[in-house]
């Protein structure tokens, strides 16, 4: 039986942990709201970009833009891995990293050399630990995401692709599906797959036929394609950041609940221990009195 003081201390300790997890839960939920709002604001931009590019790509049949062309010999692969900087968010980072490593092994089996470009400390640490070469890494930037970051990451891989140093580029990130579901997702960045025109079949197709392009279609496409890579990277960053906060919220919610449970059992134990000590004291007193009387 543990002593009364030990149990008391344990209860206080768990209570303090609970305070922290609860605070983290609330911070995460506030940050999640911000991150979600950013995704919401970004959506019109991304959607419009897709539409325009799909439209343009259908106009320019069979172009040989360097970002669209598959390299004949595939030797080098880069994986852009987007994770969070901090842990305490359940299995979120673990899942993304596992997906990235699986992809890396698959590419190695295809005979490619795999290198990583990491945003977020967790991914960087994991890639380094598994002995992969790092192209670049950006730590401590998930808190202050901006388009410039996506831009510089994208610029790096585009440059690598154009100079034939990279033959394939993948993006692995945590997709934000809902509050309770943030699966890892892999997406091929380069060679770029042009977005499919979704609803262009219907009445929109007719209306869009007499477009005036300035400059020429090919040049315009060359201008827009690199930016589309940036848009996709930025989407990955925003999604991961929202997912991270959602995952942390869930994890901290769980932790708080576990703390409550633990406090309950400990309180029960505390009461039992107290009762036991009172009983044994009583037995002492009664026993003593009996001895005197006898």
């Amino acid at each position, binding site marked *: 039986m543990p002593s009364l003081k030990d149990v008391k201390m344990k209860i206080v300790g768990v209570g303090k942990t609970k305070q922290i997890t609860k605070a983290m839960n609330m911070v995460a939920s506030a940050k999640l709201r911000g991150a979600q709002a*950013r995704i919401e*604001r970004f959506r019109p931009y991304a959607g419009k970009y897709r539409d*325009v590019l799909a439209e*343009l790509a259908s106009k320019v049949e069979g172009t040989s833009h360097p970002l669209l062309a598959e390299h004949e010999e595939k030797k080098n692969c880069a994986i852009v891995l987007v994770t969070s900087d901090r842990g305490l968010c359940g299995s979120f980072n673990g899942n993304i990293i596992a997906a990235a490593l699986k992809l890396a092994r698959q590419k190695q089996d295809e005979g490619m050399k795999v290198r990583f470009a990491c945003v977020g400390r967790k991914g960087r640490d994991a890639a380094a630990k598994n002995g992969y070469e790092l192209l670049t890494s950006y730590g401590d930037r998930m808190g202050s995401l901006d388009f410039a970051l996506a831009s510089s990451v994208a610029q790096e891989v585009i440059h690598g692709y154009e100079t034939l140093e990279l033959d394939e580029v993948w993006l692995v990130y945590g997709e934000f599906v809902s509050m309770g579901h943030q699966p890892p997702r892999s997406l091929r960045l380069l060679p770029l797959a042009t977005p499919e025109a979704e609803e262009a079949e219907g009445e929109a197709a007719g*209306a869009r036929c007499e477009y005036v*392009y300035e400059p020429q279609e090919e040049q315009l496409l060359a*201008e*827009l394609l690199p930016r589309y890579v940036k848009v996709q990277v930025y989407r990955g960053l925003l999604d991961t950041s929202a997912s991270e906060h959602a995952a942390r919220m869930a994890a901290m919610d769980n932790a708080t609940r576990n703390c409550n449970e633990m406090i309950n059992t400990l309180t029960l134990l505390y009461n039992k221990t107290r009762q036991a000590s009172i009983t044994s004291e009583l037995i002492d007193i009664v026993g003593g009195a009996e001895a005197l009387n006898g």
Partner: protein
Amino acid sequence: MSTLQLEVVTPDKTVVSAEVDMTVCPGVMGEFGVLPHHVSLLSALKTGCLRYTQNGTPTHVFISGGFADVNNKVLTVLAESAEVAADIDTARAEAARERAEKRLAEGGENIDHARAEAALQRAMMRLQIANLR
């Protein structure tokens, strides 16, 4: 008089969403004006000043790295960054200009050179537009 719906969108937010009378965009092939009932057009834009008039009052918007899509009385401008003249942070632009100028003066590898020059151009344009307000 009919109006034109102008939307200026950046990755972070919608900067302008308004019914306007006329817009002048800084296209890569030169400035062009867009009035209501303009023919469908897709044009790349260079770093510069987008100007629109609403009820006769002109507003200037800084635009960088974007393109314009005119379709069905809606002009959508997608830009990597866009700021209305009144919102431009002059102190920051000034600092950026000094930084870029310093980098250009020092000289270095070619890739930095192009980037510094673009940064300088953006900063100068921002300051210029800020002075118009």
